[in-house]
């Protein structure tokens, strides 16, 4: 850095010419598109809404994001906003009761575009253990969710991994196609009525073998 400063002075004076000038420009200028730069800036300055629903709001957000050991400030998202008008990320941390759902939807609608939502933990993703009359079975029934983080509660590493996934999605490069990367095509399991309701023959065989081993 110190060595480069005199050269910057030379360039400003107009002393650099020819090949030196070419090299100077190549070292210092990055070509990109405006969308990529905007996504990069946005993904590193997320303002989460200060908002909690249930036990994930106690375990999860303070322990796995804010404390010095895990420290979400490394990713530029430590400044929680107390108003949805100033926030661009809402983390659903806990079970969503049917009485709370319209309030969450209103908070989400009050946030300004662009906005993102993380569903943290089993309860807000699928209802979790609360398969009953009072709890919404998955928050994506009433609002769009960008990232689902499984776990009850999720490990801090999982929360930060999910957050990094969201960052990459904001940058316009969502992490998809991992099955192709790991050579795992054909291992999808579908819920009832999906295109492949039957597990593959290999996975059935492995499952039966595992059961035999457990019995023995």
């Amino acid at each position, binding site marked *: 850095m110190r060595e480069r400063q005199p050269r910057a002075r030379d360039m400003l004076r107009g002393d650099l010419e020819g090949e030196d000038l070419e090299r100077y420009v190549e070292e210092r200028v990055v070509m990109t598109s405006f969308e990529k730069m905007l996504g990069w800036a946005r993904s590193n300055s997320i303002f989460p809404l200060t908002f909690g629903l249930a036990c994930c709001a106690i375990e999860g957000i303070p322990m796995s994001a804010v404390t010095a050991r895990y420290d979400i400030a490394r990713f530029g998202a430590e400044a929680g906003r107390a108003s949805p008008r100033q926030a661009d990320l809402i983390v659903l941390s806990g079970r969503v009761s*049917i*009485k709370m759902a319209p309030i969450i939807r209103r908070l989400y609608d009050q946030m300004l575009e662009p906005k993102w939502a993380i569903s943290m933990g089993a309860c807000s993703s699928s*209802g979790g253990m*609360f*398969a*009953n*009359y*009072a*709890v919404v*079975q998955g928050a994506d029934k009433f609002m769009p969710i960008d990232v689902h983080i499984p776990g009850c509660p999720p490990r801090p590493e999982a929360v930060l991994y999910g957050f990094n996934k969201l960052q990459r999605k904001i940058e316009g490069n969502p992490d998809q196609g991992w099955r192709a990367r790991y050579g795992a095509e054909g291992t999808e*399991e579908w*819920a*009832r009525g999906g295109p492949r*309701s039957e*597990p593959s023959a290999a996975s059935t065989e492995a499952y039966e073998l595992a059961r035999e081993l457990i019995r023995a």
Partner: protein
Amino acid sequence: MPDAPGLELIRGEIEAAHPGAVIDSGFAQERAVLSIDPVHVLDVLAWLRGRSGHEYKFLSSLHAADYLPAEPRFAVHYELLNRDRVERIRIKALLTDPGEDKLPELDSCVELFPTAEFQEREVFDFFGIVFRGHPDLTRILLPEDYVGWPQRRDFPVGGEPVTFTYNERNYG
């Protein structure tokens, strides 16, 4: 807690003042229990609260239960406490199910015990038991447009079945 002769004395005195009010008396879960006719619920509570020598002036809990196969089906429990002697007694008002589209009713005790206001709303919310004379009998915990009485035994549990691979293969 009154002992067995004490409970029988209370029962006798209430029956003398309000004939037909007490249906049964006994001990359950180490607590003295008086089962009463819901018509006389205010008479019995007022008697236990005001009568000198008894003076159960504190309503520590009000809740309901659904004993579905049994008849009468519902019961509203009043846990009364005398704070001088630290004695507790449970009053159990037995309510029959009036059938489809009708809700069981009994008198509200908010005038006697102001703490009962929220608890009676909760019982109404979950069991659909109507308290006559309650100042504001609306749902308290569930959304106001909720349909049904979810803590009744014949109410479906709700939720969604989970399609794990194992369930899919064996129960499809």
